């Protein structure tokens, strides 16, 4: 917990500043999503049909940039990480349901907001109504699911370096290299 002591030197923003900061982050995020074309149904479904790799190119370059930056900042003691805890029952079953919705709706939660800003009315009406119903439905079923499937195969908030008990950079560097090689391979195939 020594990192926790160190990051206290960075002042944590108050409640109102967090709301304002969130809004500003959103403007940048939405601007980038729209410029990347991922506020569009056609681009997202094209990715899932494996004909247009824009979504993966954006996600994977964000992951490489983000990963190297945050692990660097962590090793400098500037930040701490917040990996989510999870389980097989949570992440695989929930992930597959999410994936089905992703393909049928053609937007994910973040790009749905971007699609609304872009003017897409299917996102604003059916998309928003559906996601709110789905989230509400889950809240109602949560107690029952939490006693059963959500706890199956629990692995907590472990990271890959933690799981393999190795130095973080032993994983960060090869993962970054593999992602870059994958992106080069995609480009070479003209995708």
């Amino acid at each position: 917990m020594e990192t926790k002591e160190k990051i206290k030197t960075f002042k944590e923003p108050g409640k109102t500043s967090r709301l304002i900061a969130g809004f500003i982050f959103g403007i940048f995020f939405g601007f980038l999503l729209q410029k990347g074309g991922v506020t569009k149904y056609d681009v997202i479904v094209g990715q899932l049909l494996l004909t247009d790799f824009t979504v993966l190119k954006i996600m994977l370059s964000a992951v490489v940039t983000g990963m190297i930056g945050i692990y660097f900042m962590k090793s400098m003691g500037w930040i701490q990480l917040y990996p989510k805890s999870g389980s097989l029952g949570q992440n695989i079953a929930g992930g597959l349901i999410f994936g089905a919705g992703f393909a049928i709706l053609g937007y994910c939660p973040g790009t749905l907001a971007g699609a609304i800003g872009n003017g897409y009315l299917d996102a604003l009406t059916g998309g928003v109504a559906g996601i709110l119903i789905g989230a509400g439905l889950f809240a109602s079923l949560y107690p029952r699911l939490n006693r059963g499937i959500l706890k199956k195969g629990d692995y907590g908030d472990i990271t890959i370096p933690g799981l393999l008990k190795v130095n973080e950079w032993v994983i960060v560097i090869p993962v970054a290299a593999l992602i870059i090689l994958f992106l080069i391979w995609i480009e070479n195939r003209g995708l």
Partner: protein
Amino acid sequence: MDIFTELRWSPYIVGTGIGVLSWFSFLILRIPLSCSTSFSRTSGMIERIFRGKKVETKPYYQKVKLVIDWQWMMMIGIVAGSFISSLLSGDFNPEWVPAFWNSTFGHTPFLRVIVAMAGGILLGFGARWADGCTSGHGISGTMQLAVSGWISALSFFAGGIIVAFLIYRLSG
């Protein structure tokens, strides 16, 4: 300033930008970027209008409080940012039916909206079940090398690819 009026940027520029944004999220907000919890809060807040305060006692809303937080404001910001970007490039385009959908299923807005709603229900339900979406798990989780993030991201795309092929390769 031509760059702001361009229709599209390279996906690698956009991805790198999102990666840099995530650094500042860790530094300033002290939390990774994520999106889908806001839909739970909104859903609960709407339910509270009709059913009153007792909605807050649901176990899930004890965990995910019915408040407007930074992420909720970020979602509004995403709408605004995308609107600004699309206005600047002349890409703002109010339409009901996406072109690719139209080429297979026709131009009826009703059909598209109903299917979008069905997809939205699965998306909202699945995001809460998996405890994250394409942002929280797919980008923020994977970049932290979280096991939950990688397993979720692979499941998102596995489910998405299978269903997209079922929809378009069988009917198209």
